[in-house]
Every structure is written in C-alpha cells, then in structure tokens.
C-alpha cells in the first residue's frame, strides 16, 4: 500500500499502522455471521414493523373516534410499556418465556400441549413480540397526537358530506396524518436495524439465541474479541445500511405522496 499512517485514514494500531484500503470491509462483508445477522433483522423488520404500525394506527384511530369514558385509561395503558425501559421489558420477557418460569408454558401444559418460546424456531417470533409490546404505544402516541391536531373543520366537512366514522378514518384522517405515520415507520426501521437489547438479554435465559443474532451483537462480539477495526468496519456498514433504508423509504414515500 502506498498510503501510510498519518493520513488520518485507516486503523491505527500501537505499532503504527497502514491504510489497509477496504480490506476490513471485505472481511466484514464476507463474514457469514455478520451478513446473516443483517438479513435476519431485515426479514424480522419487514414482518414486524408493518404489523406493529397497523396495530398502533388502529389503536390511535379507535382512541380518536371513541366518545366514551375510559379514553384516558386506555391511552395510559397502551403507552405504559414504553415507559418501561427496554432493558427491563427485555428482562421481563426473558423471564416470561423462560420454560421453567413461563406462565404461558404452564398454561399450555395444563391445556395439554407443549409451548416453548425459546426454541430456535420460536426465537424470532419471541423477539418480534418483545419489540411490538414495547413500541406500539410510542408509535400510537405519535399518530394519536397528529390526529388530535387535525383541523376540526375538515372532519366536520366530512361528516356533513355524509361520511361515516369508518370512511372518515380511512379517507380523511389516515391520509392527513401520513407524515406522522411515515415518521413512525422511519424510526421503526432504524430501531429494527440497531436491534440489540432484546436478543442480548433474552440470550441469558434462552441459550438458543444466536450470539450474533443482530448486527449490533456481531459488532459487540468483534469488540469483545479485540477486533476493533473489524468492529468499526461493521459499524460503518451498518450505518450505511441504515441510511440507505431510511432515506430510501422517505424518498419512496415522498414520491408516492407527490402522486396523490
């Protein structure tokens, strides 16, 4: 290599280092554990994020439409999981699915079938459930406050034109709060790519969780084995993936929004 250290590029080991070009990136991208982990969270996100946002949107619309009492309590209950730190809810779910302790496992047993939420097959679903449980309320609040801010005239106009509550919700409210939904989606996409806490903590009571289940776990594993350069390269790749996906999603939505 022509470039040496002092250029500010490249890793700098104690004995002086050289600019190693893209070697670290090639290494990272040919590491099956790392590429699999990226693929894994993308698949997880493609399934989990739309489900969570659909649930959040439905709850926000229901809360917005309801005239009865209990609105405040429902609002509070839905938001409660978000008030619990991710670590604690991950710990809680780790215990809730731990076969020796899980109430769900014992209920299933009483009903005559076996349920183990820590098998390799079940793990992605368990983790998807942990995320959905933790973040639906937050997304709902974003959408709900957008709904609250809609101008009353527009909704009145819809009612005068004879639109029922369903029609109003689907044809007026949802398109109008699209920016909030798009924002919630972008944050969810980013959140999924940087998934760490849930699988890492679940692993302590469910050894079936792959030690490099998520890309951040793979980065952490590299740091723990003192492969700092590899960890840095993996971080950069992950940052690029995040940027591409979140900006890509935004651009796609903008284009669709322009066609409306």
């Amino acid at each position, binding site marked *: 290599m022509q470039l040496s250290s002092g250029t500010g590029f490249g890793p700098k080991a104690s004995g002086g280092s050289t600019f190693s070009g893209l070697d670290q990136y090639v290494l990272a991208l040919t590491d099956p554990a790392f590429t699999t982990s990226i693929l894994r969270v993308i698949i997880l996100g493609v399934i989990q994020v739309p489900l969570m946002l659909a649930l959040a949107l439905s709850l926000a619309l229901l809360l917005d439409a309801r005239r009865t009492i209990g609105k405040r309590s429902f609002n509070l209950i839905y938001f409660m999981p978000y008030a619990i*730190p991710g670590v604690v809810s991950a710990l809680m779910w780790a215990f809730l699915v731990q076969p020796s302790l899980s109430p769900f496992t014992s209920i299933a047993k009483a009903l005559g079938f076996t349920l183990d939420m820590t098998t390799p097959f079940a793990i992605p679903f368990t983790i998807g459930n942990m995320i959905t449980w933790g973040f639906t309320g937050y997304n709902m609040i974003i959408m709900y406050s957008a709904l609250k801010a809609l101008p009353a005239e527009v909704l009145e106009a819809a009612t005068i034109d004879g639109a029922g509550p369903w029609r109003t919700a689907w044809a007026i409210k949802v398109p109008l709060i699209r920016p909030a939904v798009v924002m919630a989606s972008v944050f969810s996409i980013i959140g999924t790519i940087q998934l760490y806490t849930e699988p890492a903590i679940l692993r302590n009571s469910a050894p079936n969780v792959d030690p490099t289940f998520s890309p951040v776990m793979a980065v952490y594993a590299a740091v723990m084995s003192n492969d700092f350069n590899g960890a840095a390269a993996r971080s950069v790749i992950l940052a690029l993936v995040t940027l591409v996906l979140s900006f890509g999603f935004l651009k796609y939505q903008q284009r669709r929004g322009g066609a409306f």
Partner: protein
Amino acid sequence: MTMAALYFLIPIWWFVVASTKNNGDLFSTNAFWFSELHFFDNFRDLLTRQDGIFFRWMGNSFLYSIVGAVVSTAVSALAGYALAKYEFRGREAVFNTVLGATLMPIMLLTVPLYLLFSKIGIINTPWAVMIPLLISPFGIYLARIYAATIPDELLEAGRVDGAGELRIFLSIGMKIMGPALVTIFLLQFVGTWANYFLPMMMVSSPELQPLSVGIVTWQQTMVTGAAVPTNIVIFAAFISVLPLIALFLTMQRYWKAGLTAGGIK
C-alpha cells in the same frame, strides 16, 4: 381495544406479582396471583446484597440521567431557537446535519466513541457515559419545530421595547417553548435511564454502572452460576422502573401538552 389493553397489561401484572414473591413461590405458585407477600424481605435483600450496590447503581442512573437531560435540553433550546428564528449562513446545512444525525442511532456511534474515548483515556469514567448524551439531535429537531411556532411579531415587539436578544430568548422564547422543553427533558431523562448499550460498553467497574447495566449483570449470573436468585433480579428490575413511572404520572400533563404543541397552529 380491551384485547390490546390486556396484551399490554398482562406482562406488567405478572411482573408486579412476581416482584412480591420469594424464590420458591415464584416457581411454584400461580403466576398471576399473589402468594405470601415478600416485598420487604426482597427489599432487605437488595439493601445488603453486595453491600447495597443496587442503590449505588440507582444513584448513578440519577446522576447520568439528570446531567444528560439538563444539559441536552438547554443545548436543544438554544440550537432549536437559533435554527428557527435567526437567518444565518449555512443554516440549512446545519439543520440538515441535525436531521441526518437523528437518523444515525447512537448504537452505531458507540463503537467509534469507545475507540475515541479509550484514546483519550476516559473509558470507565462517568464522563464516557455522559459526554455522548449532552447533545441530542432529536431534541434540537423537536425544539426547532416548537420554536418555529413562536410568532415573529412577539420577538419584534420585544426588540422594539429595547430587549436584547438573550433577554428575548429567555423571557419570550423559553416561556413559549416551556412545555416542549419539559418534553425534551423527559425524553432525554427516560432515554438515559433506559440506555443500556452505551454504559455497558463504556464502564466496566460495577460501582460506576447505572441500574440497567447492573441488573443485567445479575441476570447473567444465572447462567454463570453463583446466581443471584431470580426473584431478586425481578424485584430489582421492578424497583428500577418506579422512578420512571412516578415521573410519567406526575408530568403526564406536560409531555402531552408538549407532544401536541407542535401540531397546533
């Protein structure tokens, strides 16, 4: 709606019930109902276990969260107000950088920060946990949205009356942004309290760790042997949430006001 409420509530209910049990009852009695209450026994265990390190962790959590939230709220208020109310060269560029930074999760910056901090020798000190928290791009972004709602006429009126820019910011800007700033403070406080990955990377000494990291080290002992009893881990996790619950319940009005303020003209 009730189904959804049950989905969110049942795990929390289990958690509350489980935190009152001793380790034997935890594994043998009805998971969704109380058996003998061992709340105070468990509490006594926390007080004495490893010389009461749990409360040390709690103190650390308070320290990191309060410092991080106060400073980053102040920075957000100043930066958001400046970005919304002053014309200056490169304003768009600065704002786009902030916007880009909100999309860049701290998770991914943690490893580079770790390398940087170990170069300057502040790994395993409180600074390594707090410095990354002092600026919050999302806080700046929110503050800018709220600052944009301050009518320019009001600021002009202040200028006509001879108030300096700082005075205008403090007595008009801050007042109107007030509820929004409480929201930013809350989000930052809760975010720091809940933060796990950053402090886990940055501090390895148990006496510097916040609650989130400390409790997980207890959970890990269940795998490594020399176990901290499961009921104590659950109880500790439960206690660690109480300050946040208290904060949310008492300040509910503020964060709601703040969350909706951006949308109202």
